[in-house]
Protein backbone atom coordinates (compact mmCIF):
# COMPACT_ATOMS: atom_id res chain seq x y z
CA UNK A 1 0.00 0.00 0.00
CA UNK A 2 2.70 2.41 1.00
CA UNK A 3 4.74 1.39 -2.05
CA UNK A 4 1.86 2.14 -4.35
CA UNK A 5 1.32 5.46 -2.66
CA UNK A 6 4.93 6.47 -3.02
CA UNK A 7 4.96 5.46 -6.69
CA UNK A 8 1.89 7.49 -7.44
CA UNK A 9 3.28 10.48 -5.60
CA UNK A 10 6.50 10.11 -7.53
CA UNK A 11 4.60 10.26 -10.79
CA UNK A 12 2.82 13.36 -9.60
CA UNK A 13 6.12 15.00 -8.82
CA UNK A 14 7.39 13.96 -12.22
CA UNK A 15 4.38 15.53 -13.89
CA UNK A 16 4.78 18.73 -11.94
CA UNK A 17 8.38 18.99 -13.00
CA UNK A 18 7.48 18.25 -16.57
CA UNK A 19 4.89 21.00 -16.62
CA UNK A 20 7.35 23.37 -15.00
CA UNK A 21 10.02 22.59 -17.51
CA UNK A 22 7.61 22.69 -20.45
CA UNK A 23 5.99 26.05 -19.70
CA UNK A 24 9.08 28.29 -19.88
CA UNK A 25 10.08 26.60 -23.14
CA UNK A 26 6.71 27.37 -24.73
CA UNK A 27 6.85 30.91 -23.45
CA UNK A 28 10.40 31.36 -24.64
CA UNK A 29 9.58 31.49 -28.34
CA UNK A 30 7.92 34.96 -28.40
CA UNK A 31 10.39 36.33 -25.88
CA UNK A 32 13.29 35.20 -28.01
CA UNK A 33 12.39 37.80 -30.65
CA UNK A 34 12.99 40.74 -28.36
CA UNK A 35 15.75 39.68 -26.02
CA UNK A 36 17.55 36.65 -27.32
CA UNK A 37 20.40 36.65 -24.78
CA UNK A 38 18.35 36.85 -21.58
CA UNK A 39 15.54 34.65 -22.79
CA UNK A 40 17.87 31.76 -23.52
CA UNK A 41 19.32 31.88 -20.05
CA UNK A 42 15.87 32.07 -18.49
CA UNK A 43 14.49 29.16 -20.51
CA UNK A 44 17.24 26.86 -19.42
CA UNK A 45 16.19 25.05 -16.33
CA UNK A 46 19.75 24.14 -15.37
CA UNK A 47 21.66 27.33 -14.90
CA UNK A 48 24.89 25.56 -14.03
CA UNK A 49 24.82 23.23 -17.00
CA UNK A 50 24.18 26.05 -19.44
CA UNK A 51 27.70 27.33 -19.00
CA UNK A 52 29.53 26.24 -22.12
CA UNK A 53 32.03 23.88 -20.52
CA UNK A 54 33.41 20.92 -22.40
CA UNK A 55 32.45 18.55 -19.58
CA UNK A 56 28.98 20.01 -19.19
CA UNK A 57 27.22 17.62 -21.51
CA UNK A 58 28.06 14.47 -19.60
CA UNK A 59 27.43 16.02 -16.23
CA UNK A 60 24.05 17.66 -16.26
CA UNK A 61 22.58 18.53 -12.91
CA UNK A 62 18.93 17.82 -12.32
CA UNK A 63 16.83 19.71 -9.79
CA UNK A 64 17.02 18.47 -6.23
CA UNK A 65 13.50 17.03 -6.14
CA UNK A 66 13.52 15.54 -9.63
CA UNK A 67 11.87 12.14 -9.94
CA UNK A 68 12.23 10.26 -13.16
CA UNK A 69 8.79 9.46 -14.65
CA UNK A 70 10.01 6.15 -16.06
CA UNK A 71 11.98 5.14 -12.95
CA UNK A 72 9.94 5.71 -9.82
CA UNK A 73 11.61 5.47 -6.41
CA UNK A 74 12.15 2.00 -5.11
CA UNK A 75 9.72 0.38 -2.74
CA UNK A 76 12.50 -1.33 -0.77
CA UNK A 77 12.96 -0.45 2.85
CA UNK A 78 15.39 2.46 2.90
CA UNK A 79 17.82 0.96 5.43
CA UNK A 80 18.38 -2.09 3.23
CA UNK A 81 19.05 -0.09 0.09
CA UNK A 82 22.69 -0.07 -0.84
CA UNK A 83 22.70 3.60 -1.75
CA UNK A 84 21.15 4.48 1.58
CA UNK A 85 23.66 2.27 3.37
CA UNK A 86 26.59 4.02 1.76
CA UNK A 87 25.11 7.37 2.72
CA UNK A 88 24.60 6.18 6.27
CA UNK A 89 28.11 4.76 6.54
CA UNK A 90 29.82 7.82 5.11
CA UNK A 91 27.87 9.99 7.55
CA UNK A 92 28.85 7.61 10.34
CA UNK A 93 32.52 7.65 9.41
CA UNK A 94 32.60 11.43 9.16
CA UNK A 95 30.82 12.01 12.45
CA UNK A 96 32.32 9.27 14.61
CA UNK A 97 35.78 9.94 16.04
CA UNK A 98 35.86 6.75 18.10
CA UNK A 99 34.80 3.43 16.67
CA UNK A 100 35.61 -0.05 17.94
CA UNK A 101 35.48 -2.98 15.54
CA UNK A 102 34.44 -6.40 16.76
CA UNK A 103 34.36 -9.71 14.99
CA UNK A 104 31.10 -11.47 15.84
CA UNK A 105 31.01 -15.19 15.26
CA UNK A 106 27.43 -16.37 14.79
CA UNK A 107 25.71 -14.65 17.68
CA UNK A 108 22.05 -15.50 17.99
CA UNK A 109 19.43 -12.81 18.38
CA UNK A 110 19.00 -13.64 22.06
CA UNK A 111 22.73 -13.25 22.62
CA UNK A 112 22.80 -9.93 20.77
CA UNK A 113 20.03 -8.55 22.92
CA UNK A 114 21.73 -9.76 26.11
CA UNK A 115 25.04 -8.20 25.07
CA UNK A 116 23.38 -4.92 24.16
CA UNK A 117 21.42 -4.90 27.41
CA UNK A 118 24.59 -5.32 29.48
CA UNK A 119 26.39 -2.69 27.41
CA UNK A 120 23.56 -0.21 27.90
CA UNK A 121 23.50 -0.92 31.63
CA UNK A 122 27.24 -0.31 31.94
CA UNK A 123 27.12 2.88 29.89
CA UNK A 124 24.26 4.25 31.94
CA UNK A 125 26.38 3.94 35.08
CA UNK A 126 29.08 6.22 33.70
CA UNK A 127 28.79 9.49 35.66
CA UNK A 128 27.27 12.33 33.69
CA UNK A 129 29.73 14.93 32.40
CA UNK A 130 30.53 17.72 34.80
CA UNK A 131 30.03 21.37 33.88
CA UNK A 132 33.03 23.23 32.54
CA UNK A 133 34.55 26.36 34.11
CA UNK A 134 32.31 28.56 31.96
CA UNK A 135 29.17 26.80 33.18
CA UNK A 136 28.43 24.87 29.96
CA UNK A 137 27.40 21.26 30.49
CA UNK A 138 28.64 18.89 27.75
CA UNK A 139 26.08 16.66 26.05
CA UNK A 140 25.59 13.26 27.62
CA UNK A 141 26.53 10.82 24.84
CA UNK A 142 25.33 7.65 26.58
CA UNK A 143 22.21 7.24 24.46
CA UNK A 144 24.11 7.91 21.22
CA UNK A 145 26.53 5.01 21.58
CA UNK A 146 25.42 2.26 19.24
CA UNK A 147 26.57 -1.27 18.69
CA UNK A 148 25.69 -2.21 15.14
CA UNK A 149 26.53 -4.93 12.70
CA UNK A 150 28.20 -3.60 9.58
CA UNK A 151 27.71 -4.72 6.01
CA UNK A 152 31.41 -4.91 5.32
CA UNK A 153 31.43 -4.49 1.54
CA UNK A 154 29.23 -1.41 1.75
CA UNK A 155 31.28 -0.10 4.65
CA UNK A 156 34.45 -0.65 2.66
CA UNK A 157 33.14 1.45 -0.23
CA UNK A 158 31.92 4.14 2.15
CA UNK A 159 35.31 4.18 3.82
CA UNK A 160 37.00 4.69 0.46
CA UNK A 161 34.63 7.56 -0.34
CA UNK A 162 35.41 9.23 2.97
CA UNK A 163 39.14 8.74 2.65
CA UNK A 164 39.83 9.40 -1.00
CA UNK A 165 37.07 11.70 -2.22
CA UNK A 166 37.16 15.40 -1.50
CA UNK A 167 33.81 16.87 -2.54
CA UNK A 168 34.91 20.50 -2.34
CA UNK A 169 37.95 19.85 -4.49
CA UNK A 170 35.83 17.99 -7.04
CA UNK A 171 33.27 20.80 -7.14
CA UNK A 172 35.99 23.23 -8.23
CA UNK A 173 37.06 21.00 -11.12
CA UNK A 174 33.72 20.21 -12.76
CA UNK A 175 30.09 21.08 -12.39
CA UNK A 176 28.90 17.49 -11.99
CA UNK A 177 27.43 16.00 -8.88
CA UNK A 178 29.77 15.74 -5.93
CA UNK A 179 27.73 13.78 -3.42
CA UNK A 180 28.92 10.44 -2.06
CA UNK A 181 27.01 8.36 -4.59
CA UNK A 182 28.03 10.42 -7.60
CA UNK A 183 30.02 9.40 -10.61
CA UNK A 184 32.74 11.81 -9.49
CA UNK A 185 33.08 10.03 -6.18
CA UNK A 186 33.17 6.68 -7.93
CA UNK A 187 35.91 7.84 -10.27
CA UNK A 188 37.88 9.29 -7.35
CA UNK A 189 37.88 6.04 -5.39
CA UNK A 190 38.70 4.04 -8.50
CA UNK A 191 41.71 6.23 -9.20
CA UNK A 192 42.90 6.26 -5.57
CA UNK A 193 45.84 4.20 -4.42
CA UNK A 194 44.14 2.06 -1.79
CA UNK A 195 47.20 -0.04 -1.04
CA UNK A 196 49.34 2.86 0.18
CA UNK A 197 50.12 1.83 3.79
CA UNK A 198 50.16 5.44 5.00
CA UNK A 199 46.43 5.87 4.45
CA UNK A 200 44.00 5.02 7.24
CA UNK A 201 41.99 2.99 4.76
CA UNK A 202 44.84 0.60 4.02
CA UNK A 203 45.48 0.17 7.72
CA UNK A 204 41.89 -0.54 8.72
CA UNK A 205 40.61 -2.44 5.68
CA UNK A 206 42.18 -5.79 6.75
CA UNK A 207 39.92 -5.63 9.81
CA UNK A 208 36.81 -5.36 7.66
CA UNK A 209 36.77 -9.02 6.72
CA UNK A 210 34.14 -11.51 7.72
CA UNK A 211 31.41 -10.57 10.18
CA UNK A 212 32.20 -7.22 11.75
CA UNK A 213 30.23 -5.11 14.19
CA UNK A 214 31.07 -1.55 15.21
CA UNK A 215 30.61 0.21 18.50
CA UNK A 216 30.39 3.91 17.69
CA UNK A 217 30.90 6.83 20.06
CA UNK A 218 29.97 10.38 18.98
CA UNK A 219 32.92 11.82 20.95
CA UNK A 220 36.20 10.48 22.26
CA UNK A 221 35.09 9.78 25.82
CA UNK A 222 37.54 7.49 27.64
CA UNK A 223 35.08 7.01 30.51
CA UNK A 224 32.42 5.55 28.21
CA UNK A 225 35.04 3.58 26.32
CA UNK A 226 36.32 2.06 29.55
CA UNK A 227 32.79 1.11 30.60
CA UNK A 228 32.19 -0.56 27.23
CA UNK A 229 35.52 -2.38 27.33
CA UNK A 230 34.77 -3.74 30.80
CA UNK A 231 31.67 -5.40 29.41
CA UNK A 232 32.69 -6.41 25.90
CA UNK A 233 36.41 -7.15 26.19
CA UNK A 234 37.42 -7.35 29.86
CA UNK A 235 41.07 -7.72 30.79
CA UNK A 236 42.14 -8.33 34.35
CA UNK A 237 44.23 -5.43 35.64
CA UNK A 238 42.74 -2.37 33.95
CA UNK A 239 39.27 -3.31 32.73
CA UNK A 240 37.89 -5.99 35.07
CA UNK A 241 34.59 -7.64 34.18
CA UNK A 242 31.55 -6.70 36.31
CA UNK A 243 31.29 -8.77 39.47
CA UNK A 244 28.89 -11.66 39.65
CA UNK A 245 27.38 -10.49 42.93
CA UNK A 246 26.56 -7.00 41.73
CA UNK A 247 25.62 -7.74 38.13
CA UNK A 248 24.13 -11.24 37.86
CA UNK A 249 22.69 -10.37 34.45
CA UNK A 250 26.20 -10.26 32.99
CA UNK A 251 26.72 -13.90 33.94
CA UNK A 252 23.53 -15.18 32.34
CA UNK A 253 24.07 -17.92 29.80
CA UNK A 254 22.94 -15.83 26.83
CA UNK A 255 25.15 -12.87 27.73
CA UNK A 256 28.22 -14.97 28.44
CA UNK A 257 27.97 -17.11 25.33
CA UNK A 258 27.42 -13.96 23.30
CA UNK A 259 30.45 -12.24 24.78
CA UNK A 260 32.62 -15.28 24.13
CA UNK A 261 31.87 -14.93 20.44
CA UNK A 262 32.76 -11.24 20.29
CA UNK A 263 36.33 -10.41 19.48
CA UNK A 264 37.75 -6.91 19.71
CA UNK A 265 39.94 -6.69 16.62
CA UNK A 266 40.76 -3.00 16.58
CA UNK A 267 39.47 0.50 16.47
CA UNK A 268 39.52 3.80 14.68
CA UNK A 269 40.27 6.78 16.90
CA UNK A 270 40.36 10.25 15.34
CA UNK A 271 40.85 8.71 11.91
CA UNK A 272 43.78 6.54 12.96
CA UNK A 273 43.93 2.77 13.27
CA UNK A 274 44.47 1.32 16.73
CA UNK A 275 44.84 -2.31 17.76
CA UNK A 276 43.25 -3.68 20.94
CA UNK A 277 46.16 -2.50 23.07
CA UNK A 278 45.89 1.00 21.64
CA UNK A 279 42.15 1.01 22.30
CA UNK A 280 42.76 -0.01 25.91
CA UNK A 281 45.31 2.75 26.22
CA UNK A 282 42.71 5.28 25.04
CA UNK A 283 40.21 3.81 27.49
CA UNK A 284 42.74 4.17 30.30
CA UNK A 285 43.16 7.94 29.93
CA UNK A 286 41.95 9.37 33.23
CA UNK A 287 39.40 12.12 32.89
CA UNK A 288 39.38 12.22 29.11
CA UNK A 289 40.79 15.10 27.12
CA UNK A 290 40.50 17.45 30.10
CA UNK A 291 42.51 14.98 32.12
CA UNK A 292 45.24 14.98 29.50
CA UNK A 293 45.23 18.78 29.45
CA UNK A 294 45.53 18.98 33.22
CA UNK A 295 48.40 16.49 33.11
CA UNK A 296 50.14 18.68 30.56
CA UNK A 297 49.58 21.82 32.63
CA UNK A 298 50.93 20.07 35.72
CA UNK A 299 53.95 18.87 33.80
CA UNK A 300 54.69 22.34 32.44
CA UNK A 301 54.24 23.92 35.86
CA UNK A 302 56.52 21.45 37.60
CA UNK A 303 59.05 21.84 34.79
CA UNK A 304 58.99 25.62 35.37
CA UNK A 305 59.57 25.09 39.06
CA UNK A 306 62.50 22.82 38.25
CA UNK A 307 63.99 25.40 35.88
CA UNK A 308 63.77 28.20 38.44
CA UNK A 309 65.30 26.08 41.18
CA UNK A 310 68.03 24.95 38.81
CA UNK A 311 68.79 28.53 37.76
CA UNK A 312 68.64 29.72 41.33
CA UNK A 313 70.86 26.87 42.44
CA UNK A 314 74.01 28.21 40.78
CA UNK A 315 73.67 31.73 42.11
CA UNK A 316 72.79 30.35 45.51
CA UNK A 317 75.87 28.10 45.40
CA UNK A 318 78.05 31.01 44.36
CA UNK A 319 76.63 33.18 47.11
CA UNK A 320 77.15 30.40 49.64
CA UNK A 321 80.74 29.86 48.49
CA UNK A 322 81.52 33.57 48.65
CA UNK A 323 79.79 33.86 51.99
CA UNK A 324 81.69 30.93 53.45
CA UNK A 325 84.93 32.35 52.08
CA UNK A 326 84.16 35.71 53.68
CA UNK A 327 83.40 34.14 57.01
CA UNK A 328 86.60 32.13 56.64
CA UNK A 329 88.56 35.30 55.94
CA UNK A 330 86.84 37.02 58.85
CA UNK A 331 87.81 34.15 61.07
CA UNK A 332 91.36 34.35 59.83
CA UNK A 333 91.46 38.06 60.67
CA UNK A 334 89.51 37.93 63.92
CA UNK A 335 91.64 35.39 65.85
CA UNK A 336 94.65 37.68 65.29
CA UNK A 337 92.74 40.56 66.79
CA UNK A 338 91.69 38.35 69.69
CA UNK A 339 95.30 37.24 70.15
CA UNK A 340 96.44 40.86 69.90
CA UNK A 341 93.76 41.98 72.34
CA UNK A 342 94.33 39.18 74.83
CA UNK A 343 97.75 40.27 76.07
CA UNK A 344 96.56 43.86 76.45
CA UNK A 345 93.72 42.77 78.73
Amino acid sequence: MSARLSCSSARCVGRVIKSQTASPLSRAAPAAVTLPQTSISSTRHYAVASRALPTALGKLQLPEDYVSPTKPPTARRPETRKSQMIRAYTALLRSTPLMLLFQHNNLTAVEWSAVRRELRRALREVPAPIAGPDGSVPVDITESIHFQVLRTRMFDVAFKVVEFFDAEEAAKQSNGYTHDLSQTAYEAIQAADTTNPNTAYAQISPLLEGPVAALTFPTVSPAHLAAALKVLAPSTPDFPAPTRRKYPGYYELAAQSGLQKLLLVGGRVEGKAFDYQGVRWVGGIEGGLDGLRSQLVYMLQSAGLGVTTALEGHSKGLWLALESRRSQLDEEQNPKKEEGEAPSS
Partner: protein
Amino acid sequence: MITRFITEVNTKFNPFSTAARSTRLFLSSLPANARNQGMKIDTKLLPRTSADPAMLQVKFKDGKEMNLDGAKLGIKGIIEEVDRHSRFLQKQVDLNDG
Protein backbone atom coordinates in the same frame (compact mmCIF):
# COMPACT_ATOMS: atom_id res chain seq x y z
CA MET B 1 31.50 -27.85 7.22
CA ILE B 2 31.23 -30.84 9.56
CA THR B 3 31.98 -29.58 13.06
CA ARG B 4 30.62 -32.52 15.07
CA PHE B 5 34.02 -34.12 15.54
CA ILE B 6 36.04 -31.06 16.44
CA THR B 7 36.78 -30.81 20.16
CA GLU B 8 39.18 -27.92 20.34
CA VAL B 9 40.14 -24.93 18.21
CA ASN B 10 43.12 -22.77 19.13
CA THR B 11 43.83 -19.69 17.09
CA LYS B 12 46.29 -16.88 17.27
CA PHE B 13 46.40 -14.10 14.71
CA ASN B 14 47.11 -10.48 14.06
CA PRO B 15 43.87 -9.01 12.70
CA PHE B 16 45.75 -6.21 10.92
CA SER B 17 47.51 -8.68 8.65
CA THR B 18 45.76 -9.77 5.48
CA ALA B 19 47.12 -13.28 6.00
CA ALA B 20 44.85 -13.71 9.02
CA ARG B 21 41.73 -13.47 6.89
CA SER B 22 41.11 -17.18 6.42
CA THR B 23 41.73 -17.92 10.10
CA ARG B 24 39.15 -15.34 11.09
CA LEU B 25 36.68 -16.69 8.57
CA PHE B 26 37.18 -20.19 9.95
CA LEU B 27 36.21 -18.90 13.40
CA SER B 28 33.08 -17.35 11.95
CA SER B 29 32.13 -20.60 10.22
CA LEU B 30 31.85 -22.50 13.50
CA PRO B 31 28.20 -22.91 14.47
CA ALA B 32 26.47 -20.72 17.04
CA ASN B 33 26.06 -23.54 19.56
CA ALA B 34 29.61 -24.89 19.18
CA ARG B 35 30.64 -23.98 22.74
CA ASN B 36 27.47 -25.47 24.21
CA GLN B 37 28.27 -28.79 22.54
CA GLY B 38 31.62 -28.98 24.27
CA MET B 39 33.95 -27.43 21.70
CA LYS B 40 36.72 -25.40 23.28
CA ILE B 41 37.51 -22.31 21.27
CA ASP B 42 40.47 -20.24 22.33
CA THR B 43 41.48 -17.12 20.42
CA LYS B 44 44.53 -15.03 21.08
CA LEU B 45 45.05 -11.72 19.32
CA LEU B 46 48.51 -10.52 18.47
CA PRO B 47 49.42 -6.84 18.61
CA ARG B 48 49.43 -4.86 15.41
CA THR B 49 53.22 -4.72 15.05
CA SER B 50 53.64 -8.47 15.36
CA ALA B 51 54.78 -10.28 12.21
CA ASP B 52 54.03 -13.78 13.50
CA PRO B 53 52.04 -15.96 11.11
CA ALA B 54 48.47 -16.82 11.99
CA MET B 55 48.11 -20.07 13.89
CA LEU B 56 45.13 -22.41 13.63
CA GLN B 57 45.15 -25.65 15.55
CA VAL B 58 42.18 -28.02 15.33
CA LYS B 59 41.80 -31.11 17.54
CA PHE B 60 39.40 -33.93 16.74
CA LYS B 61 37.55 -36.49 18.83
CA ASP B 62 39.92 -39.29 17.90
CA GLY B 63 42.87 -37.22 19.16
CA LYS B 64 44.16 -36.04 15.79
CA GLU B 65 45.65 -32.58 15.79
CA MET B 66 45.86 -30.39 12.72
CA ASN B 67 48.01 -27.34 12.38
CA LEU B 68 46.72 -25.38 9.44
CA ASP B 69 48.43 -22.50 7.72
CA GLY B 70 45.66 -20.11 6.81
CA ALA B 71 47.79 -17.90 4.60
CA LYS B 72 48.71 -20.79 2.32
CA LEU B 73 45.48 -22.77 2.30
CA GLY B 74 42.85 -20.05 2.28
CA ILE B 75 39.45 -20.55 3.86
CA LYS B 76 38.39 -23.13 1.26
CA GLY B 77 41.56 -25.11 1.80
CA ILE B 78 41.14 -25.07 5.58
CA ILE B 79 37.56 -26.29 5.34
CA GLU B 80 38.62 -28.98 2.86
CA GLU B 81 41.34 -30.28 5.19
CA VAL B 82 39.07 -30.28 8.23
CA ASP B 83 36.21 -31.91 6.34
CA ARG B 84 38.45 -34.60 4.94
CA HIS B 85 39.18 -35.94 8.40
CA SER B 86 35.64 -35.28 9.63
CA ARG B 87 34.21 -37.34 6.79
CA PHE B 88 36.55 -40.18 7.73
CA LEU B 89 35.30 -40.04 11.33
CA GLN B 90 31.71 -39.79 10.12
CA LYS B 91 32.20 -42.92 8.05
CA GLN B 92 33.48 -44.81 11.09
CA VAL B 93 30.53 -43.66 13.19
CA ASP B 94 28.11 -44.75 10.47
CA LEU B 95 29.74 -48.19 10.21
CA ASN B 96 29.67 -48.72 13.97
CA ASP B 97 26.08 -47.56 14.37
CA GLY B 98 24.68 -49.27 11.31
